[in-house]
Each structure stands twice: as C-alpha cells, then as structure tokens.
C-alpha cells in the first residue's frame, strides 16, 4: 500500500518553507532565504522538485527560490507565483536566476498566477489554492478590492489548503493580512484545517486589530495546532495580541513556534534540547528552536504533527514557564 503524503514545515527562522512529499512527487510551498531549504533537500535526497508554489514575492518567502534556481544540483519543473506589480530588485533577480536555471533545464516553466480554484493533485494529497481570488489578483498590488480595501502584496498572499488521504490537514496562510482574510472569507467562510501555519509569522496583520484578526481566523479555521514560523528576535514575533486572539478562539489549541520567541524566554537553553524532529532547522545553530521543524501526516484519518507535542509542551514548561502560549485568554 502506498505511503501517504507527508508535509514538513521547516524552521527557517523568519520566513516560510514547507516540503510536501507524495510518493515521488515533491512540492515546495515558499522558500525562505538561507540554506535551510537546500540542506533539507540534501538530507532528504531530493534533487528534483516538481513544483514550487510561491505565496508572494517577499524575500522571506521567495529569497530561497533564488538559491534553488542557482543550485546546479537542483532541478525544478514548475514554479507558480503571482505577479509582483512593484517589480523591484527581488523580481529582477528572480528573472535573472530563472534565466540561469533554464540554461540547465530548458523545460523549467514559471507560471504567473496562483489563484483560487487552482489545485495540485498528488497520489494521496491535494493542494487547493483558497486565495487570492482571480478578481483580487487581477487588480494586483496597489489596487482596491470591491469593498474599497487596499490590496497589498500581503493581501494577495496565496493561501493553500493541504489535504492528505482526503482529510484536510493544514492551511498555509503565508502573510495574508486583514484585507486578504476578508476576501478569503467571502469565498471560503470556513477554511477548516486541524493545523494552521499562521499568517505573517505571528506579526501584525497590517493596520487591523491583531487580536480580532487572530480570533476571526482561528474561529473560521478551528485549528488544533497553530504553527508560527518565526525567527527568534526578529520583529518581536509572535505579537502577544495575536496569541490572545488565538486563545480566545481556540483555547485548547497547541501553539508551536518554530523558534523560541524573546517574549517567552530571555535566553536560549544552555544545553542542546532533545524533543526536536531529526531534520534541518535554522534554530539549531543558536539552540533557539522551540518546536523546531515540524512534520504533518495523516494516519487512519487522523492528522498527526511531529515531533511529539507533549514533549514540546514539557520543553516549554521547563525552559519558558512564562511563555506566551501558556497564558490563557
């Protein structure tokens, strides 16, 4: 019997990157800068990536794509990305790196447009794009939506729902802000998933009230596990108001930050920790992992997250007893 797909959400510091392996099919969701992604691919013995889905063109989501395109050992088949109207330095470099990669892999295709109603099928998995809608994407960055809300690059973040064995497993929210969230809810009022990779690394969602934003998102998604993919000391994430909002909506959810927030502990543990998944994690360099790199799989219809979340909870109790995740709403 074919093994089910597995997703790995990497600790890349401030940024996002997840790899989904479904039999021989390899999908990457975002590629944060740094070489954690490359090390992960090497560790997994992956030299061919079937598709890369880039939620939006911020460097902490697309910077690593440059590294992958320029790495002569890596072969990529398809890249999906929404157009960046600003077309600044990052976009220019992406186009140059793409030209370099195509010299080695002429079949490499880049598809402009990652919008709602697109989906990507694997042997046991399915990735559905829930946002942005084609209408929002058509307006682009700098436009306003039908309700007069200004659309930023974050508003246009692609939101992806991963299902494994026909079970909704994880929602990847990239950096979606309040405008993007409202547009998502208009199309998909209840994007349910037991695991959510929270938007914007737990940072502020634009000008909206962060507590209300987090509460509304979690009320709609109803996650059991909330993952914050963040870098210790970067932008003081997660914002305490975000955590309050999460707790108000889903008080029993397990909160898992990839790295140990400075809100939760003034220092990193003095000794190496033992609860982490055996996988590349940027926080290992400074012993700054909290939950570290996480795996998501489905067994007998149940979504499981590794490493053992009870071990993670014990780690927090011992090393960060005043952690944000331990406070009640």
């Amino acid at each position, binding site marked *: 019997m074919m093994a089910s797909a597995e997703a790995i959400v990497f600790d890349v510091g401030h940024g996002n990157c997840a790899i989904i392996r479904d039999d021989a099919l390899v999908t990457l969701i975002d590629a944060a800068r740094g070489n954690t992604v490359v090390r992960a691919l090497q560790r997994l013995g992956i030299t061919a990536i079937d598709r890369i889905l880039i939620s939006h063109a911020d460097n902490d989501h697309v910077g690593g794509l440059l590294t992958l395109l320029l790495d002569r050992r890596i072969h990529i088949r398809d890249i999906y990305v929404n157009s960046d109207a600003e077309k600044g330095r990052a*976009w220019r470099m992406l186009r140059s790196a793409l030209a*370099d990669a195509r010299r080695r892999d002429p079949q490499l295709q*880049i598809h402009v447009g990652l919008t709602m109603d697109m989906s990507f099928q694997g042997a046991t998995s399915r990735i559905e794009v829930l946002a942005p809608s084609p209408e929002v994407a058509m307006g682009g960055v700098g436009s306003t939506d039908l309700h007069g809300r200004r659309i930023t690059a974050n508003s246009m973040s692609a939101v992806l729902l991963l299902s494994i064995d026909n079970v909704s497993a994880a929602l990847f929210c990239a950096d979606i802000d309040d405008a993007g969230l409202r547009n998502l809810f208009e199309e998909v009022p209840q994007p349910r998933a037991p695991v959510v990779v929270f938007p914007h690394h737990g940072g502020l969602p634009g000008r909206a009230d962060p507590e209300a934003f987090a509460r509304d998102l979690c009320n709609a998604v109803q996650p059991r596990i909330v993952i914050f993919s963040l870098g210790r000391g970067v932008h003081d994430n997660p914002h305490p108001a975000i955590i309050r909002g999460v707790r108000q909506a889903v008080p029993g959810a397990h909160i898992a930050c990839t790295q140990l927030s400075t809100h939760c502990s003034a220092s990193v543990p003095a000794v190496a920790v033992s609860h982490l998944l055996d996988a590349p994690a940027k926080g290992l360099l400074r012993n700054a992992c909290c939950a570290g790199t996480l795996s998501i799989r489905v067994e007998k219809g149940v979504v499981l997250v590794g490493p053992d979340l009870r071990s993670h909870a014990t780690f927090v109790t011992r090393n960060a007893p005043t952690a944000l995740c331990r406070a009640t709403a």
Partner: protein
Amino acid sequence: MTVTQDFALRDVAIIDDDANQALVTSEIVSHAGFNPIVLEGPFKKVDKLVTAVRTRAQAAVCDHRLRYGGFADFTGAEATAKLVSVGFPAILVTQFAEQDYDVSIRRWRDKVPIVLPRAEADAQRITQALVQCQAEIQGKHAPDRQPHRVIFEIVDRSAEAGEDVLDVIIPEWDSDTAVRLPSRLIPSRFRRKAKIGALFIADVNIEAQQSSDLFFENFELAPPPDPNDGLG
C-alpha cells in the same frame, strides 16, 4: 590546561610586525600548549614567508597589518590565505578587524577560515581556531563557511582607503544590509561591467551571521532576464 591533547600540531609560527605584540601572542600560544616560534622579517614576497613558516612550524598565528613595522609589503590576510591554500593551518588575529574586514581582509576571506579580534584571542580560542582551520583544510567546512551560488546586485561604488569598493545586496543573505567588497575581487574580464545596478552570481557563504565573515568566489555575470518569461 592541556588543550593540545587532541591536536597534533606542536610548533606555531607567530607572524607580527610588532615585536612586543609578537611576545604577547607567543605567551598566549605557549599557554595553549604549543611551542611559539616568532618569525623575524622583513619579507619582500609572501612566498618567502610561506616557505619560512613551513620549514619552521606546523601552524601559524598571523597579524594582519604587517607594513608598519617594515615586516612585509603584503597583509597578514594574504599570508594566511597563501598558507591555508597549501594545506597549512593558519589563523588571522588583528586589532583592526572592524576597519579591515570589508576590504583588505575580504579580499582573501575565502581562504582565511578564522579571523580573531585580538581582544578575543585567548589560548582556548586560538586552539579552537586552529582546529577549525585544519578541519576546513580537510574539507569539513563549518556550516557558516559553506559557499552557495547566489545572485547579488551592485548598489554603490566608491573608494575606501584608496581602494575601489563595491556595496552589494545579497537577498539570500539579507536584503536589507549592503555588503562591501573590493572591486578587484571581481575578475578583470568582468570588472568594467561592475556598475551600479549590475547583477552578478558568485559563491558566497550565506549562512554566516556577520557581514564580516562573508567571502566571495567564482564570479559570473548574471544572465539577463528572458523577455518572454512572462514575468516582465
């Protein structure tokens, strides 16, 4: 403290244009369990120094600014790089790290695994540095010394200490912090293209935490975007 128990080296050359500083370094190296051998200059050519060091010692601790005492017309970074290039463990110790990182040290940084600020150069750190240098010579690069093929943009061109320098942005390292390097690092066949806005590809150790630890090698011109790639 017998820090040399796991370290096969014994004689360590001390390369410094300041005799008093050479004495201080010798004491530290001796405390680390090594036998310091102070080299006496002057050396007109770096190859002569390399030969002298290799015939008298098994490792070297090298000061960076060697000119002031008339010791040599080349820098310690160059000397260290030449030693490491022939498989000889050598580290750079300097009190001018902040001033010299971007230009005269960067020029040789790919072959200088360790740069120790003099204030941090105690017995333990010197030993650790020599061990790490030896490991890199044997092909075991520390993660922050692993080069990756990256793309960067030249955002400014100016002069520092009489040398033409470039300020570049490497998004795969940090899109908000410019890194300075001497323009002579760019191969001469590409140098006239090294203008503001130009894109280059090079191997850079992007896991380095500090700008001062970045090195660049294997430069290429970045290809122009394909006008038909759909991203224009």
